[in-house]
């Protein structure tokens, strides 16, 4: 087995028994990135120097044998919206093209204290605005399963890198499906965490009230290992949750069946327009889960149809404010050969932001304007409450819900880029989760025409353990997650 095919757990065993060093493992990944990424384009920045330094430090720690964690010496990558000290963090935007943060995000800090090894930063739609990486200010990432197709977005670089064996895991970020959708399109496992479960400190925000950092890896078990490392309360994030973090991987080891669990199937997610292969695969997966002991019932989430407009309205509003700091004064791009302060603002933002970002800033600025606030932002917040209540009600009768992640498999590069509304609609199954702040796991469950299919397992707040158990047992009996793209 090649080094890049090892699961985190397998790699950890080889590292701790010193059959392979972190440096060897890291070099193997760097070599593979050098070979394959010019085509896949999943990385914006490869931090080779830092990676080798961190790998050597990890090897030192392994040598002493003290305080080893399952992630010690394990390479990883991170979506380029997660701040890494001294390493370019661009959000795939020209406005941050050479921006090097002078601090690490809390999630990165936690991985550093495990002596994990940062390989680099993954491409994304600019500031997370998109579902395909086509809105990246730099380039479009290709789906490793078929280079003519998008990897999904906005964490498309992370998903493609995991799928192509260019990293064992990646930290993704999910605002409205940005972890789950690309995970599904690329055939990897991705977790959208409960809002507040992982600190947002150092995560460059798109929508502060929806953004969540979550792991993307090749198995549920690997996702669990990463989650237990990065989750937890952070005094620097006032919205982070206080509840203690569970030892997810230990729980997975002892889970034998799903007896006693009741799974809801929301009828609003299996409707006309759903690709028949996706429909078949997800229903097949549900049957499999039923066979593991879970009870399956039909439920209803009646306000689902409003999720897309509500989600985008709140997104536009918050994003327009979150993007105000890119003004050319303190960091990032700054157009200075102009006459006035106003021109610095105008020129910097005109040059630095891409078309989709500008569209959303304008829509959000409008939605928050005096006289329109009540009709748009406030109303959206009210409907958001109804959507949240839909979930609360559903979770009174069941422990988790299963749906497709996306209505179809990955679409072709260029297919939807000219029609923003069509692009927004590809998020139809994923955004309600962010409105409710609940966790959801994307698990590969089929392949159609050479492109992966994913199912989404949703649960109430802080039910990560339940979701991981369902996903892990499913993966222990199926092999969809072990399939690799033909590279």
């Amino acid at each position, binding site marked *: 087995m090649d080094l890049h095919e090892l699961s985190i757990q397998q790699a950890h065993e080889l590292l701790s028994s010193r059959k392979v060093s972190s440096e060897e493992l890291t070099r193997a990944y760097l070599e593979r990135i050098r070979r394959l990424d010019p085509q896949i384009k999943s990385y914006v920045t490869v931090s080779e120097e830092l990676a080798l330094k961190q790998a050597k430090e990890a090897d030192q720690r392994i040598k002493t044998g003290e305080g080893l964690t399952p992630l010690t010496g394990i390479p990883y990558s991170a979506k380029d919206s997660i701040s890494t000290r001294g390493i370019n963090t661009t959000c795939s935007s020209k406005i941050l093209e050479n921006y090097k943060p002078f601090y690490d995000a809390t999630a990165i800090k936690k991985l550093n204290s495990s002596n994990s090894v940062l390989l680099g930063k993954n491409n994304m739609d600019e500031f997370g605005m998109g579902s395909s990486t086509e809105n990246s200010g730099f380039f479009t990432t290709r789906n490793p399963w078929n280079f003519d197709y998008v990897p999904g977005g906005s964490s498309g670089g992370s998903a493609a890198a995991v799928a192509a064996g260019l990293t064992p895991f990646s930290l993704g970020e999910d605002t409205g499906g940005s972890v789950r959708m690309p995970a599904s399109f690329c055939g990897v496992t991705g977790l959208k965490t409960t809002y507040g479960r992982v600190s947002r400190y150092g995560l460059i925000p798109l929508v502060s009230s929806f953004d969540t950092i979550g792991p993307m890896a090749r198995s549920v078990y690997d996702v669990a290992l990463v989650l237990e490392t990065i989750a937890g309360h952070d005094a*620097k994030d006032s919205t982070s949750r206080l509840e203690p973090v569970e030892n997810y991987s230990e729980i997975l080891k002892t889970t034998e069946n799903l007896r006693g669990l009741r799974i809801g199937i929301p009828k609003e997610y299996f409707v006309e327009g759903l690709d028949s292969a996706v429909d078949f695969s997800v229903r097949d997966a549900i049957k499999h889960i039923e066979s593991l002991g879970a009870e399956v019932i039909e439920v209803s989430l009646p306000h689902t149809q409003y999720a897309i407009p509500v989600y985008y309205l709140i997104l536009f509003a918050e994003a327009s404010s979150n993007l105000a700091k890119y003004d050319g004064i303190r960091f990032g791009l700054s157009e200075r050969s102009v006459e006035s302060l106003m021109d610095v603002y105008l020129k910097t933002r005109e040059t630095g932001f891409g078309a989709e970002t500008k569209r959303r800033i304008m829509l959000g600025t409008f939605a928050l304007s005096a006289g329109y606030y009540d009709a748009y932002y406030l109303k959206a917040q009210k409907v958001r409450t109804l959507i949240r209540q839909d979930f609360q009600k559903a979770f009174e009768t069941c422990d988790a819900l299963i749906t497709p992640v996306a209505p179809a498999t990955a679409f072709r590069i260029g297919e939807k880029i000219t029609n923003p509304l069509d692009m927004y609609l590809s998020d139809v199954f994923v955004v309600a989760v962010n409105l409710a702040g609940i966790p959801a796991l994307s698990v590969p469950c089929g392949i159609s025409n050479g492109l992966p299919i994913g199912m989404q397992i949703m649960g109430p707040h802080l039910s990560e353990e339940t979701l991981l158990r369902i996903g892990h047992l499913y993966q222990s009996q199926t092999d969809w997650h072990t399939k690799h793209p033909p590279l």
Partner: protein
Amino acid sequence: MQLKYEPIIGLEVHAELLTKSKMFCGCEVVDSITAKPNHYICPVCTGQPGALPVLNKKAVELAVCVGLALDCKIHTESIFARKNYFYPDLPKGYQISQYDQPLAIDGKIQIETEAGIKEVRIRRVHLEEDTGKLSHADGHSFIDYNRSGVPLLEIVTEPDLRSSEEAKAYATKLHAILRYLDVNSGDMEKGVIRFEANVSVREAGSEGLNTRTEIKNLNSFRALVQGADYEIKRQTEIYSRGGIIEQETLGFNEATGKTYSQRGKESAHDYRYFPEPDLPPLVLDSDWIESIRASLPELPEAKTKRFIADFGLTPSEARFLTAELSLADYFERVLAKSKSPAKTVHSWIAGEFMRYVNDSGISIEDITLSPESFAKLIDMTADKVISGNSAKVVFNEMVKNGSNPEQIVQEKGLAQVSDESFIQDAVMKVLNDNPSEVEKYLAGKDTLLQWFMGRVARATKGKADPNVAKELLVKALEERRK
């Protein structure tokens, strides 16, 4: 017929809160004038991408103190909001402030006006963060983010003020209350308290409000009065000519004493307020609020009442002393050490002491004259150990050199003399040296007695007990009449 116009003024006061660290990060709050620029900053207060605010509990506590002192209703749940606008001193492109649900509402402050005590209603008190500081030199602009994120309290009145004097009385009273609560340093010249005045005028006796203008950057009591007066006059003149007032934002030029237009209504900011998603609602425990209420210090109103009731001072004497906490404290410390009545101590404080404070420009907190020494001086004068004139000499010596009054009296030989033979000698010498004045006096010019008193005082170097001197003078003059 000439119409009379009445000014309507509402004030917004921004006061920095005296916390050790900033509102939303751990950076130290430093003196914005002396600290090295951009040395007390971090990812949060410079708006680095991904940094998040964490609320400073002390700032909330101080804000609650002010809300309670102003008799406000404190909201147990208040919400932070983003106020969105672009400016280089605003690193995030928005200011974290409060909008829909501020920390406190519906308070009041009593002020003294010519017509008596007046109540000014407080509309709201809310927390927000200060911006950085811009400066301009040699065609460049500089930004110092040391001040960025310093906690600010905004205190907004209803349009209850009817003159610039009332505005000043309100501002002075609020300043005093903030000092009493020790939530603000009170250093106006460092910009820790800043005023914005909303001014309109209307025909006297009419109801309803006319278009108002907002004057920004009024950074002293003087600027507040000047700016408001200028604007009242400008608006009155425009109405008198039959013109109309445009709603606009004005700046104030301290050098010329004039206001100038910054922004018209059409270019007014739309701040696009919305709830700050990075901070959960601020929920306060009502027991905590009550514990703050219980620990509030004595405020100016209460102190004034106590000074009147306990010390027998008149209301105006008491208010003079309580206008500033440091003055009231100093007064009480002197009074505690002195055997003299409060009125005597008050007249010393209001007289020599304030003259010295005003002339020297030293703040009361920094005065080295110990209350013990001052009390001794007052008592020595009351006991006629020294004369009033000598006492002033001793006072000046004490504030200069800090020595105790007895020592100064001894060294300078200022002890008052009541010994009749010593004074009698001086009296006789004065009368003998001035025969023509004696003649005029005897001819009926009684006012010359005071002149003779002055001569005697000079001859005795101020040591003569004036009562004894006067008695002996009259006696000697009457003898010459015979």
